[in-house]
């Protein structure tokens, strides 16, 4: 459902009136649980990584390069003699942090715009939605590359680039939800009772919107993370010598047949992280549906 909210209203498949109402606090979907567990694992690794890492992730020992897993190096060493496990433990920071911050900012900003736009209507709504219509079609990778050309690679540039385009689907979703909720009788009642516009927004609209909005944020996390990783892969992400999963995969490419673990491990890390968050998003949006 959250995905469809990225489309303009006109494109939504028309909902038949017989669609069942979703109960509020039903049993969570299995994907939500599995995803949450996996995510906790990833989060713990990310936070404790630097302390858990047995070696300095940037320390090179040229003599011991491309060594297979052993007692000293559980996952072996890379082509410059750095410990793979240590690099793996700290390599997620860049992509995960950027994706998380971007999505949070996009969700907050987009929801505010969408909800206010829906409540006010008129010209405000018109301007906001036209901006959304146009920005939503900007290819985010190109905007990111362009900003990197201007401002250099780094956390700030990428967060800016991805948020500038990323808030738009959230605005559309929030607006759609707000309109739906606005039509409810109890909103009318609240208005008659004289509740201020801000009160209605904060007390009624936003709490009801949070569910689908967060589901959307989680569902988009995987894509964002992989996009940031893609930029790192081609050298526009975090700069050496810091470790980054996607950059590790790029550097290990020539050695893929000699030491496949160098590519497999970071790839698996990206996959599991993206999967866990997608599952959470899936679970959030399906909680209450028949399993």
């Amino acid at each position: 459902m959250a995905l469809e909210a990225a489309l303009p209203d006109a494109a939504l498949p028309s909902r038949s009136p017989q669609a069942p109402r979703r109960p509020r606090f039903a049993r969570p979907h299995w994907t939500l649980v599995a995803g949450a567990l996996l995510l906790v694992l990833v989060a713990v690794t990310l936070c404790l990584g630097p302390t858990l890492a047995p070696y300095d992730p940037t320390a090179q020992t040229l003599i011991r390069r491309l060594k297979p897993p052993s007692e000293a190096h559980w996952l072996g060493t890379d082509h410059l003699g750095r410990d793979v496990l240590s690099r793996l433990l700290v390599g997620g920071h860049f992509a995960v942090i950027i994706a998380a911050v971007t999505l949070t900012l996009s969700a907050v900003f987009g929801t505010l715009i969408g909800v206010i736009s829906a409540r006010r209507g008129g010209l405000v709504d018109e301007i906001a939605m036209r901006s959304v219509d146009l920005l939503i079609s900007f290819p985010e990778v190109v905007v990111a590359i362009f900003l990197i050309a201007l401002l250099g690679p780094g956390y700030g540039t990428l967060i800016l680039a991805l948020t500038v385009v990323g808030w738009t689907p959230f605005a559309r979703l929030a607006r759609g939800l707000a309109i739906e909720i606005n039509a409810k009788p109890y909103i009318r009642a609240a208005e008659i009772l004289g509740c201020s516009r801000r009160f209605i927004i904060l007390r009624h609209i936003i709490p009801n919107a949070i569910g689908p909005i967060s589901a959307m944020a989680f569902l988009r996390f995987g894509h964002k993370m992989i996009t940031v990783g893609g930029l790192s892969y081609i050298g526009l992400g975090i700069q050496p010598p810091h470790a980054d999963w996607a950059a590790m995969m790029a550097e290990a490419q020539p050695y893929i047949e000699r030491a496949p673990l160098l590519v497999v491990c970071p790839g698996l890390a990206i996959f599991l992280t993206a999967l866990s968050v997608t599952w959470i998003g899936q679970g959030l949006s399906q909680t209450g549906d028949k399993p």
Partner: protein
Amino acid sequence: MNKTLILAFACATAWPAAAFAQSGGKITIAENFPPRAGFALETDDANVLSKAGCLEPLTRIDFDGKLQPSLAVSWTQVSPDTWDFKLRKGVTFQDGKPLTAAAAAASLNAVLKVPTPARAFSPRVIKSVEAVGEDTIRVTTPSPSVLTPLRLAAANAGILSPAAYKDGKIDPVGTCTGPFVITRVNGQQSLSLKRNDSYWGGKVALAEAEIKFIPDANVRATQLRTGEADVAGAVPASTLATLKKTSGVKVVTLATPRTTTLLVNVKKPPFDNEKVRQALQLALDLEGIAGSVYEGSVQPAVGPFAPHEPWVQKAAKPAAHDVKKAKALLAEAGVKPGSLELEIMAYSEKIEFKDLAAILQDQFKAAGINARIRLAEYKALEPDMIAGRYDVALLSRSHLVDVADPAGFLSSDYGCGGGFNLTQHCDKDFDARLATAAAETDAEKRYAVYGELAQQLQSKAVNVFVIHEAGNDGYKTKVRNYRIHPLYQYTLTKDLAVD
């Protein structure tokens, strides 16, 4: 009756056999540098045309590094600054026009008079070119020189038919003199060629050729393994082990007159302090570098020239690896540990440079120097390097590039006002000694001076010489007569063949 049958049978089998022998086959070569400047001869595109077996100069350096006749059969020094070159008779351009002195002179003057001439063939080193009679080219230099015939061997001095020069653009299709005719230029992707049936040098073995331009060295090596290419130029050291094990593939290595150098901007503080430069030198573990990034296929550098070359002192050895001493020297020079920050420039055309820069960054860090890396294409970095706007930069430099004698290199790279003096080194004494060497006719004595100068550069750490390079090309075993040219000037030759 029987005899007739046998004769008929013999003819029937001999004819297709002869036809097959005449066919020659097709070769696909994966090359590094694509033509970037519309085949302008004053740029590196001239080398692309030369390697493709199309463009030929008046003289040439052969695969053993010796000067040989090419489009000119002989040359004489008529006065200290003038040389006459006698053109070969009976040579035609691929479009049928004859090679005359006028055409050759026009070609050379065209490349001499462009706004941004090539370093190897510019008004700085060549004063004038004129046609004398039907078959002689007279070349004058600004100062007396014995190196002129060597200069005419540069790819930039290649000769094209007058029809090639149209509205300021170069059209190399059918206008060269070489064993191969370009049939199709596919942008920056590939070049298609076919045999030149009227080649002056004799029969050309191959019938067709395709050159694919693939800047990523790993992809070139992969294409060799999958069979998409029959020859892969400059394969990375990391693929050597795999390629040698692959059946049907051979690897040929050539010690090239190239040294990977970490240029240091000696005019920019604190690198103007010899101690700081020596600290940079001592911080590096050259053996470790040679063994890791280059997988043991190269030697640590003893200076700008490699140990096997005739102009190197016997006692030359690589710089030591001593991090403690490096830190001490930095302290002596007044640099606080951790305070020195620099940017390492590295260009991406050399695939090893990315890892090399990472290693340098790490080894500098151990000595208390913080380094950033800037990785880009050479063309993007060159302006900053030439203008002296850099700290240190990795460079793969051939000391026999413009001319096949290291004097040219020593003067252009380390002489005051040298045309490629990126390091901004200027030492009057150095220049004086080099000048006496240039006038010395005894080769032994000349080489001895070169050796001393090289040793001086090494001990003063004017630059940090990292490793002496080796060229590695891979090719399928069905390819015959493949050799690496020491100056990477020729690949497709008339003798190159496939079974």
